[in-house]
């Protein structure tokens, strides 16, 4: 008997006595949204979708086309492990549709699905593994660290480690395997590395993990943040992302005969990302604050570049262990923890595929430390800079056919409009830097 996935979910809800189902979706800016329904409503939600007013949710819809349908994706049903077992609660990701049944163009999950479908037509599946960094602070008002430890420090008694351990347990219980986790370089900063998976599931996992991190912190009276650069001093929170393409069972990035073990496909894919990176940086680094992280010396790239053992490069090619050919991959280091993973993966994948399709040439490897490079040296060696603030990033994105095509008209236009107004709001603000520096002397 063929078991339908919707039946599976309905039956599980019944058998486990689930009281509440949270329908999750992600808005254009990458915020997780949730509608709660009772089990009785779930069957209808599967069949007809759940009507809701998209304009009520930032970034989803314009007033004149406000009604949309949320249809639960039965594959993603999970019980929430932190909820009191006497009141079982499930979550399920939704896809957003127009009332006529066509995919809603403003739904980031649809955007990624569409781009992965295009990759699939070329025979590729896209795998990613993010290193997610974040901070714990005493509250959401003042970024006051809980500790002053550093990279890999063992601070067994500190609250941060306890919180991280609880987070990992919840994450594993929801089927999100963690590769490593540790205390990061900055005070109160932590990192969780997720195990390689196909990128659609990974985007869902990132959304879930962010919620788990925040939720566990909140329960302990602490604020967790994925803000890219919360402290003046030290490094910010990036989301370095390892990625590769598979053709069926085979890692398409691997070539045993190449000195670096990298296939032509990998090189072209990298070339595509490098070529288009400045245009899509507004998507991978979407906040005014994102660009405070992207300065020389703090684990964040500044120049469009690639290298093997050079952490200042935009793309790093990690050396895979002998016999581990399937782990051949590249690491994109600009992405930050505040990005919308569905959209960020979409633009990176599209740029890489473009490189393969149009046969881009991979530029020369950057072997020097790019962080110590002077501006004029960089210019002389022909290195292009990544955008230095949101304004520049938006200007470059606005001119990009690739980003337009990848995100679709609806999100492209909305994103630019929203972000331009964010920039304008920022520009009018007087910062503590200016007050400290100028007030006494001018």
């Amino acid at each position: 008997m063929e078991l339908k996935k919707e039946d599976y979910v309905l039956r599980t809800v019944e058998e486990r006595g689930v009281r509440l189902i949270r329908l999750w979706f992600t808005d254009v800016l990458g915020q997780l949204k949730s509608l709660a329904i009772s089990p009785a409503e779930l069957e209808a939600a599967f069949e007809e979708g759940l009507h809701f007013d998209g304009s009520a949710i930032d970034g989803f819809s314009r007033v004149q086309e406000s009604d949309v349908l949320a249809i639960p994706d039965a594959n993603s049903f999970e019980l929430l492990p932190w909820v009191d077992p006497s009141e079982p609660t499930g979550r399920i990701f939704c896809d957003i549709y127009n009332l006529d049944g066509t995919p809603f163009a403003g739904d980031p999950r649809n955007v990624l699905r569409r781009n992965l479908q295009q990759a699939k037509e070329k025979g590729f599946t896209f795998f990613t593994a993010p290193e997610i960094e974040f901070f714990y602070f005493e509250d959401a008002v003042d970024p006051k660290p809980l500790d002053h430890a550093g990279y890999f420090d063992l601070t067994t008694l500190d609250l941060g480690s306890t919180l991280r351990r609880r987070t990992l347990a919840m994450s594993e219980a929801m089927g999100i395997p963690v590769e490593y986790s540790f205390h990061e370089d900055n005070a109160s900063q932590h990192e969780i590395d997720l195990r390689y998976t196909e990128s659609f599931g990974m985007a869902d996992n990132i959304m879930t993990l962010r919620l788990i991190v925040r939720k566990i912190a909140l329960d302990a009276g602490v604020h967790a943040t994925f803000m890219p650069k919360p402290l003046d001093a030290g490094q910010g929170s990036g989301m370095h992302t390892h990625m590769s393409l598979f053709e069926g069972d085979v890692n398409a990035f691997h070539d045993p005969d190449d000195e670096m073990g990298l296939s032509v496909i990998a090189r072209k894919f990298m070339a595509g990302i490098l070529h288009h990176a400045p245009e899509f940086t507004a998507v991978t680094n979407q906040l005014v604050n994102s660009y405070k992280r992207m300065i020389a010396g703090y684990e964040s790239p500044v120049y469009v570049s690639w290298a093997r053992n050079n952490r200042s490069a935009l793309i790093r090619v990690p050396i895979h262990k002998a016999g581990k050919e399937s782990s051949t991959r590249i690491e994109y280091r600009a992405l930050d923890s505040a990005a919308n993973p569905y959209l960020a993966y979409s633009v990176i994948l599209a740029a890489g595929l473009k490189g393969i399709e149009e046969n881009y040439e991979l530029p020369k490897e950057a072997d020097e430390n790019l962080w110590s490079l002077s501006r004029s040296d960089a210019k002389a060696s022909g290195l292009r800079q990544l955008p230095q603030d949101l304004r520049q990033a938006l200007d470059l994105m606005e001119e990009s056919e690739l980003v337009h095509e990848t995100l679709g008209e609806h999100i492209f236009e909305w994103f630019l409009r929203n972000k331009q107004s964010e920039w304008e709001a920022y520009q009018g603000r007087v910062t503590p830097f200016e007050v400290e520096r100028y007030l006494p002397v001018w």
Partner: protein
Amino acid sequence: MKGMSSLLVFPDPPPPELAQSLDLAGFSWKAVSNSSVAEAYAADHEWNGAVIVADEDPNSAFSLARSLRKRANPIQGILLLLNATQLGQLELRDELFDDFILTPFRHQELEARLKHLFWSQGIDSRGEVLTHGDLVLNIETYQATINGRPLDLTYMEYELLKFLVSHPGKVFSRETLLSRVWGYDYFGGARTVDVHVRRLRSKLGEENAGLIQTVRSVGYSFGQSRWGS
């Protein structure tokens, strides 16, 4: 609460062709070597019948059958397997079995006799249940438990586990699993299987993670074949 009910099978291990027949016919069964093992197991499970092979060690077989009948809650539905030269031994032992079948048996006959036996006892022996050791999958309710602990599985995790449990000991390539479990309407690719296996192992818990074995450069297999590979 008592766990799932199974068919008692003697001896342990049973002849491979018997194990295979019972598995193919979809019976949930458990082999025991003597009556004390049977009683220990009955502490938290139900026996809903028995298949007792008498042609190798008739004395132990008959003594087990007798003890099953003498329980406070006697086991009904005992099928005896013996060879033609043993027919004489049935005399004066009518109370120890409900039906018998001669070895070598035919798979279809065994299945038909067991079905009939259970029907006449009013027992639903097959309960849509797949078991492997402490792992139980109820096909009817879509629920899975290990050691009585419910497993919270997503639909695809459940489907993958169900497929693997239904084919113990058999090695499947990622491509095969992908086409048999997922169908081709999926952009995840063959590596998706690895991801789901990793998730299943994490949900099964560390002590059971070895149930699903990675077969290097081939794919995966589940448990041990109960009739040899």
